């Protein structure tokens, strides 16, 4: 439900900014190569204001959910607020986007082709 609501927010925001915007639909990556994943990680890290992120193990050529996993807890972290961060991938025309499921922030993925699922 949270996911659907966030996606709707992102899509509404997107639609409000572009007239006659093409339909946006959930998507997955076309290319799951190491190079593409590294490019994706760089752009997601930038979206989160981080130097580096670690992605979950999902096959992003099959899944439209991208997970940024927190680092494992250090041995002294016993009251940790760590949580995974999830993005929904979708395609709109020729462009691929990732929407942060918590903040609703939409990030265009550059040079990362995706397709509707």
């Amino acid at each position, binding site marked *: 439900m949270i996911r659907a609501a966030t996606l709707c927010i992102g899509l509404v925001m997107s639609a409000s900014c572009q007239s006659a915007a093409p339909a946006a639909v959930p998507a997955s990556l076309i290319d799951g190569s190491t190079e593409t994943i590294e490019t994706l990680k760089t752009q997601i890290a930038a979206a989160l204001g981080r130097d*580096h992120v670690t992605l979950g193990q999902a096959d992003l050529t099959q899944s439209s959910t991208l997970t940024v996993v927190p680092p*494992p*807890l250090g041995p*002294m972290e*016993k*009251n940790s607020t760590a949580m*995974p961060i999830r993005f929904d991938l979708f395609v709109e025309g020729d462009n691929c986007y990732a929407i942060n499921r918590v903040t609703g922030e939409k990030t265009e993925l550059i040079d990362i082709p995706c397709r509707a699922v």
Partner: protein
Amino acid sequence: MRRVNLRKVSSTLALVMAGAVLAACGGGGGGSTTPTATSTSPPPPPPPPPPSATTWQPGVFAAASTFKDQCANPRTGVDIENRPFPDQAGSLAEELFWLRSWTNETYLWNDEVIDRDPNTFNDRIAYFDVLKTDVIEPSGEERDDFHFSQTTEAFLESRNSVGNPGYGVEYGILQGAPPRDIRIAYTEAGSPAESLIGGEVALSRGVKILEINGQDVVNGFTTDPEIDDLLELLFPSANGLTRSFRVQDIDGTIRTFDLVTEDIVNEPIQSTGVITVGADKIGYVAFTTFSPFASEEAIIDAIQDMSDQNVTDLVLDLRYNGGGLLAVAAQLGYMIAGPAQSNGKDFERFIYNDDAGNRNPVDGSLNTPFPFINEVIKFDDASSLVEGAPLPSLDLNRVFILSTDDTCSASEAVINGLRGIDVEVILIGDTTCGKPYGFFPTDNCGITYYTIQFQGANDKGFGDFADGFFPSNANNTFGVSVPGCQVADDFTKPLGDETEDMLAAALQYRIDGTCPSISTPVTNFVASKTGPLSIAPSVRNERYYLQNVRDMSMPK
């Protein structure tokens, strides 16, 4: 890049301000009495330079970002997580001023820190060590006894360690100084400790360690270097090491055998069971850690099993649980209480320093409480859990929690969170460790600093349990009294055994609200690769220190 720009902005601002000051004073050396150019008098001394960013002005703090990653000895290359080091050429002064500003921005008790001139320090650790409150609580304990640092290299190695060499045991240190009494608290399934030797399990709960490699664990190891040796024997640092043990069983039998160290997988659930009393079914779950991502699936599976068996009461054994992921604690709170009692309620609210407003001062995000989480988070991406799937719930209005002073942090958050929504918590055992605080380990220039940045509070806004929760019949002066019974840990029985003293007390209290006669509380420091160890309190070498503070309870 941005940090460089900030430095430039800072420098530019300093120049502009200096210029403004000069302009306000009528320029740089002019004035009605200024000698003419033909004067033979020596030129006046130049004006003092404007205050630089690393000039101490009491009570004036530049943004910590101004000094972040400006290092006296910048690292180059990438760390073991393949991240480029962010370091730039800087100075010790900038590192010290970063500590000062970062403490002022993020430390929970920032208004209790004495503002000392960083330039009077020549060591960053020594300076960090005084960047804390000196307040002593009425109990005589320091308000902040969780303030420490370690090299970032060590921090990253520890959280990325693929191997976890050991025998597969959790120790119970009944007496840390000679004559030592070191027992086995529990063992990990399939580990060397559980290997059969002469038809008998090598190590099991209650077994006392007498010797390792022929050296007397009870009376030996008295000097600091020898204690280092003992730590290495108890907590081996490599796989494939053969160690000879001489142990004493609970019945007094002496045995000797060899164990070979290997990688150990810590299972979050040690024991589960359902105890039938008349028509009632009482669930028992021994949950030892919230730390690995796998702890989410483990506790969900355990509660699902309790739900499937229609338990009407739950004994949650947290006696060795030092905490970990608060989100999993919030899930556990939900699974105990169920939706009717927890919907719309906060499991844990976060209290930051008074200057933070409604933001987390560490990352600037909105200060958002943790609710009672009613769905799968799926920390472990490889698990079989389905993200967002509803969690099972027992819908209980009371829970029995077994505790010792190793029951800490996220475990205490479960106690506090449930009390915040009026689920009755009955505490059986000993006083919990008392750590309502948390931090975000932060690297700067190769040192990872831990400074308390938040306090957790429940839905009623209560979070003042720095002296722990204690069973109501205990003779404690400080701490938070919780209905229940003080009972010593019983190493003579397996976890989950209905006759084990703590579980038996819970079952008795459940029937008639009475406690067994108070047994002598045992100083129950549980020690393992993830727990504290009280061998010799005077020892403060790094390894000892790290092993002791791993669950944050030892520095008290």
